[in-house]
């Protein structure tokens, strides 16, 4: 539903160059995986796309409009989910519509009927319709993260950002959560950028890959170009030995 243009984006925190002249373009409905070590600048990039963080220089343009603050057409899923644990899954999903609801309406819980339906549809998308009225503090980490996804979907965004959405989940929950994100994005033709730590999950879910190192964009390519050498370039020589082993096994027998 939208194209994202990132032009010469840089961000400096004191002496630290978190982002260094990053540029790329993302087309409508692409599922992009952002890779890089901790501190490579992934979170900063996502926060700039979201408008929570202001870049030092450069710009983010979504559908020809420059991002200059948090906007309701860009939704974010956080690593620590950051949902409101005091509230039910349904109430949390509804907060996704705050941007288009007046203050007093939202205070009194008088959301438009279609937003209420939207919230429940989003919970259905992430498989939590039956748990809609459950307090989120009693949910598992994977369920809480899915509530976070539902909130992002209720925002009806044009761009979905996910900042290490599965980093604090066990491998099984991580798979489930990633699958829900991809399915939701596909069903709504949402452009998605998800930063990930786990190379194996990235390979399974990514269509296009962006690799970052020390604030610079060091890789931009699709699945075919995303080779083991690329992973080495992004992460150094760790992590890839098992994948190389696996590939050798696939080729040899």
């Amino acid at each position, binding site marked *: 539903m939208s194209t994202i243009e990132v032009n010469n984006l840089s961000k400096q925190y004191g002496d630290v160059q978190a982002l260094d002249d990053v540029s790329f373009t993302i087309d409508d409905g692409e599922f992009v995986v952002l890779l890089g070590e901790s501190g490579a600048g992934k979170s900063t990039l996502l926060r700039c796309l979201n408008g929570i963080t202001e870049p030092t220089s450069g710009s983010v343009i979504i559908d020809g409009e420059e991002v200059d603050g948090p906007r309701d057409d860009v939704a974010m899923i956080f690593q620590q989910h950051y*949902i409101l644990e005091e509230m039910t899954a349904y109430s949390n999903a509804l907060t996704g519509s705050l941007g288009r609801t007046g203050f007093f309406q939202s205070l009194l819980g008088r959301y438009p009927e279609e937003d209420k339906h939207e919230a429940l549809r989003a919970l259905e998308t992430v498989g939590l319709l039956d748990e809609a009225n459950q307090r989120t503090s009693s949910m598992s980490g994977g369920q809480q993260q899915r509530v976070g996804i539902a909130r992002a979907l209720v925002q009806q965004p044009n761009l979905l950002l996910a900042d290490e959405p599965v980093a604090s989940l066990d491998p099984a929950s991580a798979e489930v959560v990633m699958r829900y994100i991809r399915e939701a994005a596909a069903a709504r033709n949402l452009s998605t950028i998800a930063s990930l730590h786990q190379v194996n999950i990235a390979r399974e879910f990514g269509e296009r890959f962006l690799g970052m190192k020390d604030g610079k964009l060091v890789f931009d390519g699709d699945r075919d170009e995303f080779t083991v050498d690329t992973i080495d370039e992004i992460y150094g020589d760790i992590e890839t030995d098992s994948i190389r082993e696996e590939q050798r096994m696939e080729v040899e027998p």
Partner: protein
Amino acid sequence: MSTDDASGSVANRLLDIQIERRIRLVFAFVAVVGFAVVFRFALNLVGFSVVEIFRFREPFIAALKQFFPGFPLIDVTQYWAFIQERNLILSIENGRIVPGAMFVTFAMGLAGTILGLPGALLLGVLGSERVMPYPLNFVFRGTMSIIRAIPALVWALIYIPLGGVSPFTATLAIGTDTMGNLGRLFTDALEEVEDGPIEAIQSTGASAPQRVVFGMLSQVLTPFIAWTMYILEINTRVAVTMGLIGGGGLGAVLTAQRGLFKYTNMMATIVVIFLLVVSVEIVSQRVRSYIRGDTDSASLIQLIVEFPQRMARSAFK
């Protein structure tokens, strides 16, 4: 030799430690002497004397015998007679329930808490640095400090022109006091909120007031309810003392009986005060532990709905 060097440095270290300990001991001694002097000064200032206690032991023991009639077997029927005579708890007249002094006192505490709640919420939220930028929040913090600096009893005296000393003005005083105390607790609770959920709400494109309500207040809903219950406990006790200066309820009965030197009646009133304060505390603590625990909202409803079943089950056991 290296071993000599090592033992030499060990000896030096020991000496250092011993000197340090000795200095600390001297400081401790000076502090104890200082406290003793200050304590003595304070006792002199209040005219404290053991001789006085000894001299008045006879009348005090006589009073104790009235406080506890029939000691050591306390004659509770005398208490009960007074409780009924003056309607301290409640009575039934012509089939109608007439709430007694205990309920008047509780009503002062409850109504005062509820009246003060909106003000406490407003002052408490605006006093937080997380909501109001730094110098501005001190306007609200300062207002709360001024309110707190004046005790509830003094607020009741200030409100006298509004209608004398009555349960009404006492309730107003408790409400005012609540704004200062509860507001301060709200401000403190708000300092603890996490940034993550606020940022998440911000990222949905929510407006600034929505960010405060959903990002911050929703995080402190549980502590806010818990602190309000705690203040209700305190206000119930304050409501008793309000009666002592004429605000009605149990306190007024107590001070009237003291004037008549009816110590048995006084103790009967104190028993009812104890009953009220402890009941409020038990209920408040149950509510607080309930909301702190992660039990579903359904379980309270279950508790009520399934109550007849449980009663029946235990009855036929």
